[in-house]
């Protein structure tokens, strides 16, 4: 006990040295453990989500971008496809298609344009409120609600795509009708809207005063028998309300309107195989992917990187350990006189060794405490860290 007391006093006296030693040991321990936890969690999140999403149809291009955007609402937006692609799947009678349009954000959270079927498919439950009913309404994920302190009845505004696009679309103020219960998935961090609402955000639909009936001539550029041309002064509504909803309309053929992907749920295995076969032709502008396969490939690459990282960490760890041994041996040299005095005071060599051992043990214990605390934090925030760092 006296040895521990003396060791503790010594370490307290040499605070800087002790701090550096504790820091080095903590980092050596924390790095591989953190990596392990985060990689395991990322694997869990990616695999679970991919396994529960049978097929995805998107534009030809990066399959990884398509999967990451459609399943985890990642920032990389794939090329869009036409709504017609969804109708084609519907016409085959082989699978249930769910549209996805994930391109815009609201206060840094992805806006997911989809249909109500998405909630049923993912079995999403409501913590508060209900599904959206009207155009311009939205449902928010559990973490969006928590972070922004929002609840049903509040509003959230879509973010403009770029500040410098003067001709860009107006932000849309959306009324929140429901908050989802936590799912510990990307759905917690999303703002869900109906597909037509997403198209309104995209500028494909809008609401404005009736130019054929307006008495304000300053908004009219040209008036012909069958056509009225309005100028830029024409006020467009930035919120869809019960009063102005009738003025909202989409421009063009909805079959040609964009989607980023179609989530496809085959009615059975055979239907899934037949459907995949139909998208193998070179002429089709679409690709069909099995998210699980894409994620498995990604995970294989991650594991390759993980091996490299493990090797690097091992090398750095060995170098740090050697440096620590050096620090200790140099410290012993510096403390030769001190050790001599202890010896002359009557302590045996074993006691001196025990004293030095106690110092090392205390340093390791302090590092272990720090390491434990840090690991607990990592474990607590692992889902969020994974989403921010990997997905």
């Amino acid at each position, binding site marked *: 006990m006296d040895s521990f007391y003396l060791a503790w006093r010594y370490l307290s006296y040499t605070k800087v040295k002790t701090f550096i030693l504790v820091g080095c040991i903590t980092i050596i321990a924390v790095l591989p453990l953190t990596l392990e936890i985060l990689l395991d969690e990322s694997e869990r999140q990616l695999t679970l989500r991919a396994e529960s999403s049978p097929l995805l149809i998107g534009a030809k291009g990066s399959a990884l971008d398509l999967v990451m955007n459609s399943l985890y609402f990642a920032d990389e937006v794939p090329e869009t496809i036409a709504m017609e692609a969804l109708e084609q799947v519907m016409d085959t009678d082989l699978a249930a298609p769910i549209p996805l349009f994930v391109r815009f954000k609201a206060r840094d959270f992805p806006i997911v344009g989809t*249909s109500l079927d998405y909630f049923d498919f993912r079995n999403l439950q409501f913590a508060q409120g209900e599904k959206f*009913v*009207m155009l311009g309404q939205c449902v928010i994920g559990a973490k969006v609600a928590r972070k922004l302190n929002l609840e049903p009845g509040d509003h959230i505004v879509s973010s403009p795509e770029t500040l410098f696009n003067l001709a860009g679309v107006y932000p849309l103020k959306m009324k929140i009708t429901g908050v989802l219960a936590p799912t510990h998935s990307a759905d917690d961090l999303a703002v869900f809207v109906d597909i037509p609402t997403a198209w309104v955000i995209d500028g494909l639909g809008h609401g404005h005063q009736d130019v054929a009936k307006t008495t304000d001539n300053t908004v009219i550029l040209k008036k012909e028998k069958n*056509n*009225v*041309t*309005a100028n830029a002064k024409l006020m467009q509504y930035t919120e869809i309300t019960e009063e102005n909803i009738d003025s*909202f*309309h989409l421009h*063009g053929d909805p079959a040609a309107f964009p989607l980023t992907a179609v989530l496809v749920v085959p009615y059975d295995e055979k239907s899934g195989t037949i459907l995949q076969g139909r998208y193998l032709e070179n002429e089709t502008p679409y690709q069909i992917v099995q998210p699980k396969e894409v994620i498995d490939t990604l995970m294989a690459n991650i594991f390759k990187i993980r091996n490299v990282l493990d090797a690097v960490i091992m090398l750095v760890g060995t170098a740090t350990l050697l440096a620590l041994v050096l620090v200790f041996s140099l410290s012993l040299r510096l403390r030769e006189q001190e050790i001599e005095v202890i010896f002359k005071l009557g302590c045996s060599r074993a006691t001196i060794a025990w004293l030095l051992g106690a110092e090392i043990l205390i340093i390791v214990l302090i590092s272990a405490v720090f390491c434990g605390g840090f690991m607990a934090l990592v474990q607590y925030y692992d889902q969020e860290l994974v989403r921010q760092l990997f997905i």
Partner: protein
Amino acid sequence: MSIRSVLILFLFIFAMPLQGMAEKKITIYTVNYPLTYFAERIGGDLVNVVFPAPSNVDPAFWMPDKATIREYQKADLIILNGAGYEKWTKKVSLPMLRVVDTSKAFKDKLIHIETDVTHSHGPSGDHSHGGTAFTTWLDFSQAVQQAEAIYKAFSRKLPANTTDFSNNLESLKKDLLELDAQMTVMSTNKPGLSLVASHPIYQYMARRYNLNLKMVMWEPDADPGESEWKHLHELVNAHPAGWMIWEEEPLPKSVKRLQDMNIKSQVFSPCFSKPQKGNFLSVMQQNIENMGAILK
């Protein structure tokens, strides 16, 4: 235990699964009465068909309240007419996978009305808010296709009952094709006969049965106003019609004034809402009888 007790016990045991089957009834929401009738005929006891629009409102221009929309959202299937009939669906969110567009099979044959004024603003160019003729079922061959779409949806939802649905569909198809045959034969009696209709809802009927029909925009329960009477005078000068077809019984005053113009009135009800007497079939049979007076 007496024999009677044993019999009661057996009955109870056999009744339990039947009770379970009754609970499996699926709920169907529709948007007009013709589709409700088709769904009831095809689904029989296996479905619970709900058409929530009030009977005094034209369902084509009806807007359900939020509570009703939520009921639609919860339904097992939502049967739409399509062809732009249910305009309210453009403003609300419905589960896409549970929605059945019954006119999808003939969407390339829909009649587009291009009379609306267009306007333009911004980079998107000119656009019109014109619509599509939506009284699709008055062409009975199209009504058959709509019934088939309902049958397909029911069969997918309750595959174990496909045979029941199929038998019911055949019975309905027989009735609808009978109506179609009657109208087809009748229309050959006086080919090219000029007719006017009080409302622009007979486009598909006119196309299918080769009726030389011009339509105005009158309501049966209101005087159309002098400008509309003037418009009718101009119309019959170029299109000498002896009959006006009404969606409902018109005001006696209107009938009288039409008679003064040598135009007789006859009703051909589109049967948007549930009739007070009879059903879709009986209303259509009455319509054909009425048409018989014109085309005899």
